[in-house]
């Protein structure tokens, strides 16, 4: 394969994936508002477009046209860089997510932008870098609310990254690979092959940790409105605010994608006879189901206290995940021998 | 009113509480002593009970079980009373129901709403359903009077207003007319009310039947802020509440039982509250630029003033600067002004409006009796056995002091003897009167002394104790009655009758008005009155001689030493020890000799001896006649500083004008004629950048680099009290009340007394004999006005436009002059045209013109005779011979 073709293929795939992701982010906000409204017997946005369908676009336009305010006393460089540090890792992760079975395109293989053999670790590596955006943004704003939000976020992300990392080890043991495509293919052949059934505990801990990792209710400590106004991005406005916003929703989609890949068979159809439906549809369905679950949780649970959050992470989730690894490892050893 | 501690008390039990009270106490008074409230509309502590409103009904259980009116029932020994038994409450409710059958429920638009007794009692005792048939009265409101509106629909016919007019004010200007259901209150014969407008009927009205046009619909009681302050119109110093709303005065309300007036006010005090808000008030300092006064900042004006004064001091010495103070200034201002003049500017030339007459009283009273001001308080006046009133239209000049006299007349039938050249109001009420020729007070007093001596009315104790002094007086009385009858017009019989009646009284009080002190030989006249009191044995506590002040805070002027011959504390300049004390307190050297008096100062200005003057709180250009050349004198000055509320005639000639604050805008104290030092309090904000007088004096001193720095008036008064002990305590009668003057009197009799006797009883020359004019013109005091402040009140100007010559109606008829006609008044000095008002106030052969009025230049017709230095250098200009002719 020539370098030119590789680049072209990559560019096309990147454009498509990013386009889909960003559109999903936009309509995720819409979906969240709508679903929450329905849960609260309201109608949600109705004004812009039919049933408010153009609301995300209006919001986006508004945010991009608003004045960009840098607070006096803020560290200007870091204040400007932080949203970007936050957004890039969130988007970069999609590079290794396999959205379809491999197909030929322009003489190369499609289905993933790049099928890294350490793809899973790659995602976690960049997810952990996202925390810098939050912490630096909070620090650079020169505001006590932002600083506290940033600190909380740092503590929370470090704690729950561990949980996420530990909870997927079981899956890795089963599929014996860090490549997401390999993991997906490992679950081929109907929904009863999904890791979910073998690794239910890991799935639960993963989902909980994912909620915490993306700063969503009930774990939205970094931006707890009633305590910290808007947390680390209290002082942000306009474009930069939009970046943080995009990052949060892109992260949500990313962890959902990951969960579907790891536990729900990724792009694999739930049964053989459904194979005629393209793989990316299944991935999208599974991801959106998980996203709905996120919103559902938000609509149901109140925010926990910060010490409860940390205690839960360190004293419950990590031990549970460790035990899960042990059990899985033993199980795999027995089965293999 | 009543004291429970008197001996021989009887006991009464009210609601189970027992109290001992003197005989004659009424139930309502005993209840008040116990702090039990009995509702009442018509009862008033200072009036006789009339039991008209029937709301104060109480149940008496012992000695008989019956309902009584608490306000009118005298207590019997061992009486038992219930004030809120079911029977009482039922009776009260019925009473209120009956009152409310006719009373309109227009409380929202009624000015009394919110402080109305009927409202309060209806809430407290009334019922919500009225069992009687209600019928609204529909009389049109009587708004014909200048000040007071009568709304007969609201009237509950308690009669308190009528009673206050007849009992306290003794005018009976209002009364009931018609009978039965259609009874209304108002002026007799349905005429529009035209009285003194003291407004006390409005104050005692429990409902809103009488209201003031000046405040009508402009306030609600709960919106107002109350500030207790002291009235500044005359020397009485009444206490009242200045009520302000949003920084504007809404009205004045009396405070029952407080201050010299005990809750009475006169028209000036009650309705003269508009001048503070007058548009002509000075708001910014003015500085002369060329021939114009232009507005300037304080810093500029102060620097200018200090520069001018310092230049005059450098050129002509301290004695080249004159300071003139007026009674508008508070005690603290006066003290500071004195210190500024004598300490900072080192000038002995510090004089004041005392020079218009009261200086004589100040010096002679101190010399003879060791007291400053009056010997007696207003309370003494109420309790005296006889009062001799000489040369004062007391109800006009000092209305509240007049009320004290009237109180004695009403309650105790106190005999009041009047010697005056006008038919005054008190003369009509008094027991005896001598109507004398204007200007002959000295002769009349001599006549009285002569009658006492000749008729053997001299107090036995006095005759035995002080034979030399009595003999000296007797020697002076050698002449015939003829020489008294001729100038005065009084007969021997009258004099003897009056002298006899007065001498026979146990506690006789002599009141001397401005026509005694301000006339020729004023000091001698007052000395004669002291002799009279001395001979009749009346120089003792509860009796004595009392000079009445005309202006506000004249006693404050005396105490602050606002005259060249006085030191702070009212002590004579010749008192070396006192001078040393002042020098020590001020850390300065005072000159040995006293400075020049007012008229000398004016001469000095014209002759160039005086280079600069500082005039505060008075307007000599308007208050002195043309013959004194005041305006020319001030024009001759190099530099003139004036400090006042308005741009007065004096201020127009000034180089620097400072805007001062009125009494309602600042704190401080005033001294009333009794010697009470009473507070004024800030009730509103001053207009523009006006400052209190003391701050201005302080700032000028600062510019002159003699720091006189104080944090407030209290600090000034505390310092002043070191030299002026009277300033130490507030609200007590200081002057001479209750003081035994025997020691001072003996020192006086032993001293220069016999020497001064030589010319004391020499009668002065008959006034203006050279004049071919026949009618006597007298500049009289007015009840409604006192000068600058009162004439800037649109309210008072509406009541009395003042610019009128008062003529006897009979005489006017002879000259075919009707009310309102214009007449030409001509004296040797010129003529003026004024409108005429007819009143029997003026005797035939006499016409009166208000003293304060400067518009018509009648004052400039007056010839001036300046008294000798012994007689206080008082410029006498109140009498003149004129011819009055109708202008066609």
């Amino acid at each position, binding site marked *: 394969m020539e370098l030119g073709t590789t680049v072209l293929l990559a560019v096309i795939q990147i454009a498509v994936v990013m386009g889909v992701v960003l559109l999903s982010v936009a309509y995720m906000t819409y979906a969240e508002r709508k679903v929450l409204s329905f849960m609260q017997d309201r109608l949600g946005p109705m004004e812009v477009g039919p049933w408010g369908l153009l609301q995300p676009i209006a919001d986006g336009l508004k945010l991009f046209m608003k004045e960009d305010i840098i607070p006096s006393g803020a*560290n200007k460089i870091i204040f400007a860089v932080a949203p970007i540090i936050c957004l890039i890792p969130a988007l970069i992760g999609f590079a290794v997510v396999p959205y379809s079975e491999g197909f030929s395109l322009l003489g190369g293989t499609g289905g993933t932008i790049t099928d890294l053999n*350490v793809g899973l670790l790659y995602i*976690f590596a960049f997810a952990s870098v996202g925390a*810098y955006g939050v912490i*630096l943004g909070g620090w650079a704003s020169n505001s006590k609310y932002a*600083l506290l939000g940033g*600190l909380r976020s740092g503590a929370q992300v*470090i704690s729950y990254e561990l949980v996420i990392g530990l909870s997927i080890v079981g899956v890795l043991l089963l599929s014996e*690979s*860090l490549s997401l495509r390999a993991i997906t293919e490992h679950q081929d052949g109907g929904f009863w092959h999904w890791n979910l059934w073998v690794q239910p505990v890991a799935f639960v801990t993963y989902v909980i940790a994912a909620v915490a990792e993306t700063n969503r209710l009930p774990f939205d400590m970094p931006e707890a409105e009633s305590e910290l106004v808007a947390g680390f991005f209290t002082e942000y406005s306009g474009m930069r605010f939009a970046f943080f916003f995009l990052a949060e929703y892109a992260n949500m989609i990313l962890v959902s994608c990951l969960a579907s890949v790891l536990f729900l068979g990724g792009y694999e159809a739930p049964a053989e006879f459904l194979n005629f439906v393209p793989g990316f549809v299944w991935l999208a369905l599974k991801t959106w189901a998980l996203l709905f679950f996120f919103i559902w949780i938000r609509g149901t649970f109140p925010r926990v206290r910060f010490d409860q959050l940390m205690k839960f992470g360190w004293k419950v989730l990590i031990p549970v995940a460790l035990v899960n690894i042990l059990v899985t490892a033993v199980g795999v050893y027995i089965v293999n021998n | 009113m009543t004291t429970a501690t008197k001996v021989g008390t009887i006991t009464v039990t009210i609601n189970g509480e027992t109290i001992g009270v003197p005989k004659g106490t009424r139930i309502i008074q005993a209840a008040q002593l116990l702090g039990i409230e009995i509702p009442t509309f018509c009862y008033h502590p200072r009036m006789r009970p009339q039991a008209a409103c029937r709301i104060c009904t109480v149940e008496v259980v012992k000695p008989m079980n019956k309902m009584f009116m608490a306000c009118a029932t005298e207590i019997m020994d061992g009486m038992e009373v219930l004030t809120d038994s079911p029977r009482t409450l039922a009776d009260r409710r019925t009473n209120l129901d009956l009152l409310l059958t006719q009373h309109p429920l227009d409380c929202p638009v009624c000015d009394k709403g919110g402080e109305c007794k009927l409202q309060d009692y209806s809430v407290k005792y009334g019922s919500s359903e009225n069992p009687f048939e209600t019928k609204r009265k529909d009389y049109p409101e009587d708004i014909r009077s200048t000040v007071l509106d009568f709304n007969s629909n609201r009237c509950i016919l308690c009669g308190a207003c009528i009673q206050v007019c007849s009992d306290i004010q003794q005018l009976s200007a209002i009364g009931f007319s018609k009978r039965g259901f259609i009874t209304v209150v108002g002026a007799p014969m349905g005429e529009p009310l035209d009285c003194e407008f003291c407004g006390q009927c409005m104050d005692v009205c429990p409902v809103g039947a009488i209201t003031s046009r000046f405040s009508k619909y402009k306030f609600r009681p709960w919106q107002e802020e109350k500030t207790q302050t002291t009235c500044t119109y005359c020397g009485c110093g009444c206490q009242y509440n200045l009520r302000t709303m949003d920084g504007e005065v809404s009205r004045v309300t009396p405070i029952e039982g407080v201050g010299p007036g005990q809750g009475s006010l006169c028209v000036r005090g009650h309705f003269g509250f508009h001048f503070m808000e007058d548009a002509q008030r000075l708001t910014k300092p003015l500085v002369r630029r060329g021939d114009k006064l232009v507005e300037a900042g304080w810093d500029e004006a102060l620097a200018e003033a200090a520069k001018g004064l310092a230049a005059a001091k450098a050129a002509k010495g301290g004695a080249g600067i004159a300071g003139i103070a007026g009674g508008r200034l508070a005690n603290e201002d006066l003290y500071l002004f004195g210190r500024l003049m004598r300490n900072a500017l080192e000038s002995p030339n510090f004089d004041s409006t005392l020079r218009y007459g009261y200086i004589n009283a100040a010096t002679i009273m101190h010399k003879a009796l060791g007291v400053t001001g009056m010997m007696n308080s207003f309370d003494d006046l109420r309790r005296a056995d006889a009062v001799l009133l000489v040369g004062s239209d007391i109800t006009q000049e000092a209305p509240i002091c007049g009320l004290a006299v009237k109180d004695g007349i009403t309650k105790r039938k106190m005999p009041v003897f009047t010697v005056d050249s006008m038919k005054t109001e008190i003369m009509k009420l008094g027991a005896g009167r001598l109507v004398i020729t204007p200007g002959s007070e000295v002769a009349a007093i001599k006549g009285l002394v002569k009658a006492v001596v000749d008729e053997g009315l001299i107090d036995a104790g006095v005759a035995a104790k002080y034979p030399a002094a009595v003999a000296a007086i007797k020697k002076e009385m050698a002449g015939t009655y003829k020489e008294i009858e001729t100038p005065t017009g009084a007969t021997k019989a009258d004099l003897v009758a009056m002298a006899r009646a007065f001498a026979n009284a146990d506690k006789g009080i002599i009141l001397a008005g401005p026509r005694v002190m301000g006339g020729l030989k004023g000091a001698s006249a007052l000395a004669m009155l002291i002799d009279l009191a001395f001979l009749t044995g009346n120089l003792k506590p509860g009796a004595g001689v009392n000079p009445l002040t005309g202006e506000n805070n004249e006693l404050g002027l005396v105490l602050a030493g606002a005259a060249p011959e006085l030191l702070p504390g009212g002590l004579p300049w010749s008192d070396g020890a006192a001078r040393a004390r002042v020098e020590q307190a001020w850390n300065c050297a005072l000159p040995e000799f006293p400075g020049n008096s007012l008229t000398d100062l004016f001469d000095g200005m014209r002759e160039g001896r005086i280079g600069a003057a500082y005039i505060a709180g008075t307007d000599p250009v308007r208050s002195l006649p043309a013959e004194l050349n005041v305006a020319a004198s001030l024009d001759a000055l190099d530099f003139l500083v004036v400090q006042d509320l308005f741009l007065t005639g004096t201020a127009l000639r000034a180089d620097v004008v400072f805007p001062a604050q009125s009494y309602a805008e600042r704190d401080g104290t005033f001294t009333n004629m009794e010697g009470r030092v009473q507070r004024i309090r800030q009730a509103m904000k001053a207009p523009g950048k006006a400052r209190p007088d003391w701050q201005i004096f302080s700032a000028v001193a600062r510019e002159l680099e003699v720091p006189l720095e104080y944090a407030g008036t209290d600090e000034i008064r505390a310092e002043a009290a070191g030299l002026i002990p009277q300033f130490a305590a507030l609200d007590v009668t200081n002057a001479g009340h209750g003081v035994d003057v025997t020691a001072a009197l003996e020192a006086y009799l032993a001293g220069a007394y016999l020497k001064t006797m030589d010319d004391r009883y020499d009668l002065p020359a008959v006034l203006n004999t050279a004049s071919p004019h026949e009618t006597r013109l007298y500049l009289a005091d007015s009840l409604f006005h006192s000068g600058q402040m009162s004439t800037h009140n649109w309210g008072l100007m509406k009541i009395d436009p003042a610019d009128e010559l008062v003529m006897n109606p009979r005489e006017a008829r002879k000259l075919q002059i009707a009310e309102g006609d214009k007449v030409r008044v001509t004296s040797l000095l010129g003529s003026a045209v004024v409108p005429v008002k007819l009143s029997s106030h003026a005797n035939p052969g006499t016409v009166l013109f208000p003293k304060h009025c400067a518009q018509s230049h009648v004052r400039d017709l007056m010839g001036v005779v300046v008294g000798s230095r012994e007689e206080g250098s008082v410029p006498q200009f109140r009498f003149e011979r004129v011819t009055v002719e109708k202008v066609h």
Partner: protein
Amino acid sequence: MMQAIFIYLATVCVVCAVLTVSLRQPVYNVMALLTMFFHVAGLYVLLNAEFLAVVQIIVYAGAILVLYLFVLMLLNLRSESRHLHRQWPFAVLILGSVAAMLVGAMQAGGFGLPTGEAPAQVIQAVGNTESIGLTLYTDYLLPFELASLVLLVAMIGAIVLTKKELIQDHGEEQS
């Protein structure tokens, strides 16, 4: 091509390393260090060690450096930074000697270092995760376990040291 990328990565690594110790604002130091970590990871990728590269980022950038940042924010270092910078002559001395030593070593040994058991071809065939695993758990099992033991001891020690006061506090409260 590879050469160019290496030069870029190496240059940035060195520059960032210098900036890390020379910048005055502590947060900038951290940012420089972060950049350096990424470029070191790039170097690993060039060596076909993707696993190492990713772990480098997760461990150093994702965990350790975040903790540094955390501490920096809790401490207000602005006023103390100058004090720290006074040590630079001393640092130059030490670094100079270390550099001299390195240069000496390289001159003595040359660049021809021995190759391990997992050249690029092997890694691409087996997968670098497996290669590392194999190496660690066969040849270097003892050092690996020793290292983990040392870390465990350090962890327990840290816990004991920090918990001591808490335990004492509790005791005092109860007594």
